């Protein structure tokens, strides 16, 4: 067992699923016939999360099941639910992708590589974070390839399913100095992904854990001097500490700056998909609409409850919209919307799809899963999530996850879920 901890996250449940796979979707079979089960109202009510407070509500009348019955010439069951979809321009086996692991040492090299291999095997897209290149290098000449950005990309590509999934390389304002995208786009090693239309670049406008701030890492003071010309180095831990805080800037955006940056990405990298990552900001809908209008293949929104990253306490507790409120504000939208924030099991995923997301990102859950089982942890976790998603979707009388909609959720607060869009 590693030292990786995630106290604000259902870590033990994720680890259990990473070990047991689909069995985790059900109670312990040894208890079958001996214990009584039922919902725990206290658990649902205790959560202040608007998505947790929603319930999925199956109907009696299920005309789409009739359609499926006609199609199959037998009664449909949950395993008949189709999960394949398009995620930000990539064909994907599931409405899932692996999020970037944030600016933290937690996303250590071996876990990053394990997640890459398993995401490739699953046929779902994977985002490589902005921190990987500056911390671990690119991996072409002098650096150790396995540790690097290229190592992550290669690990994914070597295990990828034919024509499925894709690699998304993130870049933030300071990364532009290192020209991460230009380097990847012009690299002969990446050509197979480009030629199969499985490379995307993600413009990082912000993130869930600390909206309004840039990326942060804690560094040894000695290592920090090397970066002082590019990042803010702040000795917040006091003169007695050997460690300092390294901050990126959040980057300055207006609607015109965002629009033109996206157009320039499309101009400069015409064979790559364009993703745009937004923070849970109060103008998230306006920003998302600018991004889609400028030609982004996907907008990803990180709820304030998301993020693996190291963030100031005040931000973790008090800053940013919840993912549920982001989805409510975005409402109707013209193109692909991807969301992340505390995703690890099927019900929350199904609710987000019903609220308008096209797919969801696994961040901390993916990291904990590969930390639990470096060979199969993420595959096992996703197997369990997929089974839940099939059961829930079929219960709602639908046989493709893309058909989930607002009619499938209900708020126990009596309030109608009313998107603004």
């Amino acid at each position: 067992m590693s030292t990786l901890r995630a106290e604000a996250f259902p870590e033990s449940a994720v680890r259990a699923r990473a070990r047991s796979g689909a069995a985790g979707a059900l109670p312990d079979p040894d208890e079958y016939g001996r214990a009584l089960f039922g919902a725990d109202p206290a658990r649902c009510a205790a959560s202040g999360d608007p998505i947790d407070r929603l319930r999925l509500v199956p109907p009696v009348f299920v005309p789409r099941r009739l359609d499926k019955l006609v199609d199959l010439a037998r009664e449909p069951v949950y395993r008949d639910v189709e999960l394949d979809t398009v995620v930000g321009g990539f064909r994907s086996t599931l409405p899932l992708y692996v999020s970037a692991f944030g600016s933290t040492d937690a996303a250590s090299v071996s876990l990053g590589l394990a997640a890459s291999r398993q995401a490739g095997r699953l046929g779902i897209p994977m985002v490589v974070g902005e921190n990987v290149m500056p911390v671990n290098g690119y991996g072409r000449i002098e650096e150790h390839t396995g540790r690097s950005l290229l190592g992550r990309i290669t690990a994914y590509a070597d295990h990828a399913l034919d024509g499925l999934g894709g690699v998304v390389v993130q870049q933030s304002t300071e990364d532009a100095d290192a020209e991460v995208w230009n380097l990847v786009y012009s690299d002969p090693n990446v050509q197979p992904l480009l030629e199969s239309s499985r490379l995307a670049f993600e413009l990082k406008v912000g993130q869930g854990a600390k909206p309004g701030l840039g990326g942060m890492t804690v560094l040894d003071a000695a290592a920090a001097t090397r970066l002082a010309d590019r990042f803010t180095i702040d000795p917040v831990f006091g003169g007695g500490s050997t460690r300092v805080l390294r901050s990126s800037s959040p980057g300055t955006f207006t609607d015109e700056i965002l629009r033109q940056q996206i157009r320039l990405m499309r101009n400069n990298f015409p064979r790559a998909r364009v993703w745009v990552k937004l923070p849970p900001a109060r103008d998230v809908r306006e920003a998302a609409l600018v991004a889609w209008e400028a030609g982004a293949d996907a907008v990803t929104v990180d709820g304030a409850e998301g993020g693996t990253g190291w963030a100031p306490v005040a931000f973790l507790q008090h800053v940013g919209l919840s993912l549920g409120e982001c989805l409510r504000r975005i409402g109707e939208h013209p193109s692909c919307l991807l969301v992340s924030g505390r995703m690890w099991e099927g019900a929350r995923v199904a609710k987000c799809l019903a609220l308008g997301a096209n797919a969801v990102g696994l961040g901390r859950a993916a990291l904990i899963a590969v930390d639990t089982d470096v060979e199969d942890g993420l595959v096992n976790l996703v197997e369990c999530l997929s089974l839940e998603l099939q059961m829930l979707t079929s219960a709602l009388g639908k046989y493709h996850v893309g058909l989930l909609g607002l009619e499938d959720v209900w708020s126990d607060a009596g309030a109608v879920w009313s998107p603004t869009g």
Partner: protein
Amino acid sequence: MTQLLAIRGAERPPPADPREHLSSPVTRSVLTIQHRMLTAARDFLCGQGFIELLPPIIGPVTDPGARGAKQVDVDYYGHRYKLMTSAILYKQASLTAFDKIFCIAPNVRLEPIETATTSRHLVEFHQIDVEVAGASRAGVMQLAEGLVGHVVGEVVARLRGELDSLGRDAGTFGPLLAEPFGRRTHAQAVTDLHAMGHAQNPDAEIDWAGEAMLSRQASKPFFITDYPKGSRGFYDRENRERPGFLQNFDLIAPEGYGELCSGSEREHDYATIIARMRETGENPAKYGWYLRMVRDGIPGSAGFGIGVERLTRYVAGLDSVWQASAYPKIPGVASP
């Protein structure tokens, strides 16, 4: 004659080794023509009062406007320096010394691998880089037209034998030497391409294939003007009356040879440059020396850069641009 036939082959492979390339009579003819072109360009510009400057090779920043290409990093006493992708920032700065400057500038761009088959991309190439203080776009377009006309005219007048040996018909240049160059806006070019069934993105640079299609239809060089803002670097000036469109131009060769030259009126207002840097995804912090100069004031200007090897390819009628370089470096190919 065998050599000539070889030149006309499709998708020309790069030379096997420098000796084979350099000792080829074709290469000798091409480089002779190129030498005459450079001499003619210098004569033309010096005759108009331009000062030739020797351009810098490395610097803390360089032109970020190269489509998809990676800059080459240099470890400069522990600082990350760049090989010049173009001299644009230094051209603007140089106008604090002289009003009319030019340089024959070497540039290096690690181009995307897909450009290895366009027949017109080299990783290492040269530009005739011109900048004029106080000039308008119309003024430097006229200058570029005059310069190209003079260079081609000199080759036709003095090196007819070399053109003949390469199978290049000097009569091809009749329209170029006798008539004004054509002009169309980027929006018109997009409309023309759509009419030809080509899916050109209206917000972006004309793509390689589209540019070749337009070029093949022409019998003399033509300008494309008013590129959309999201397609070029921060230094191309935005049209104040038509926001979203730039006061810039490309010069396209006829017969399918494609782009020869890019130019523009330049932005020189400090706050506008900062905003444009952000719109092009740049981090202003790394442009310290340039922004200090801009903040203290640099002249408004217009200018252009003509690709020497591309112009040579067009004049000599070559299949591939690498034939116009003594030591060609094709994207993705490790070569001397």
